[in-house]
């Protein structure tokens, strides 16, 4: 099976909405994959990222925005953001393009 290519900080990401039904629950979100019938719960930080991705964003700019909003080191933020974006990509929640 082909492994999903890794996302880098130079990549441009954008959310893909048309496959999901979305409901905002306070700071969190619930999404339902229309084709698969799966539910995805997204925590407040994930919800913040989802809202940022309404327009195409370079990953490194997203990381800057997150470190400014949340009290977190750049290294930790980068690692966790890339991991989260990778998960989003596996669920077809984002499209990724090389810069």
């Amino acid at each position, binding site marked *: 099976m082909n492994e999903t290519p890794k996302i880098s900080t130079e990549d441009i990401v954008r959310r893909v909405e048309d496959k999901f*039904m*979305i*409901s*905002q*629950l*306070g*700071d*969190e979100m*619930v999404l*339902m994959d*229309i084709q698969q*019938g799966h*539910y995805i*719960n997204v925590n407040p930080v994930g919800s913040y990222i989802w809202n940022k991705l309404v327009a195409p964003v370079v990953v490194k700019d997203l990381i800057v925005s997150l470190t400014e909003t949340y009290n977190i080191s750049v290294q930790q933020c980068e690692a966790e953001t890339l991991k989260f974006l990778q998960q989003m990509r596996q669920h077809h929640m984002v499209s990724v393009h090389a810069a």
Partner: protein
Amino acid sequence: MQREVAFVLLCCRVFVKTADVAELIAFVQEKELDWDMVYRVSERHRIRPLVYRVLSEARVWTREDAKQGEQRFSTFCRVFSVFAFERQMELTRIAGLLRKQGIAVKVYKGLDFSRVVYGDIGLREFTDTDIMVDIADITQVIQIMISEGYSCSGMDFFRRFPERYVTMYKDICFEREAPRGAVYSFEFHYRPVKYFMQEQYSFEELLGRGYLENEVSLRGYYNLMLLNHGSSDYFPNLRALVDMMVLKQRVTGELPEALRRFEQLWQALAVQLLHYQVVPENLGTDKALMRTIDAVMKRLLRVRIRRMSYVKRVGIQVGFEKEWIEKARTIWKGIFFLLVPNGEDIRGQGSSLFSIYYFTKAFRLIKKNLKLL
């Protein structure tokens, strides 16, 4: 007014932008709240997702005393979002099946209203899925829904006495168990108004020609909701008032004359409860309207409330009518509707003579009331 009722009202005001978040935060800091009661008041008014969203945005849930409330609201909202998603999926499936058979259907209220007016199908509580359909297609709709595993309590009545059914009822309803509990409940409406309502409109009169093909406009929704929340239900909860305010902020244009007093009714309620800015004119001269405002207001401010009985509902309508002739007509229609046999009286009986069921109904009602004694 009870503190928790005032608090929920303030949440609604923040949502419709007649109060700001600072007022809400000051309220929480100054007054001790029973969060269980806040939940129950929100439940009674069918605005739990709205209250949860307002309180989340105001960061009220970070308070230690609010934690328990947060848990209850968030659990409900999570379950409700899944409920809404599942109904949307089933609706898409059913609408697809019907269209494939050449039946034109248009979704309205419930899911569609949440999407169009609130922008989020999880933000407004609803139970049923409402669909507009042409009366000529109902027989085919019944066949398809039954073949999809749905049951229909009015089916026997409709099949045997279709003209009488259509005169008395505005829709035909179907239910089926949903995979995660509760039921899928579909209501197919061929007209927007109940038999005993004075304001008799067709969908075409309210929404224009081609209403089954076009999106329901905000103006169309405003008129429909005036009929539904106002003329049919007399604004039974805060959800109805919030709906009207949110819509009114976005619509322009003329209103059918027969609906004007219902607009005045919600506006007068919203002025007092939600600090709505537009005070309706000439209210003082309309005594019947003033009395209705008082009656509906008292009901809205009660913490616990039962579903409005049929007799109470007709009573409010009689009080609302201005002219004696209209009051008499409402009473007559109310009594007539009560006496006419329904699906329960017809089910399992073989007579093709409709009038025989007036006796069946009388017998059933006497039996039911004797049991209550």
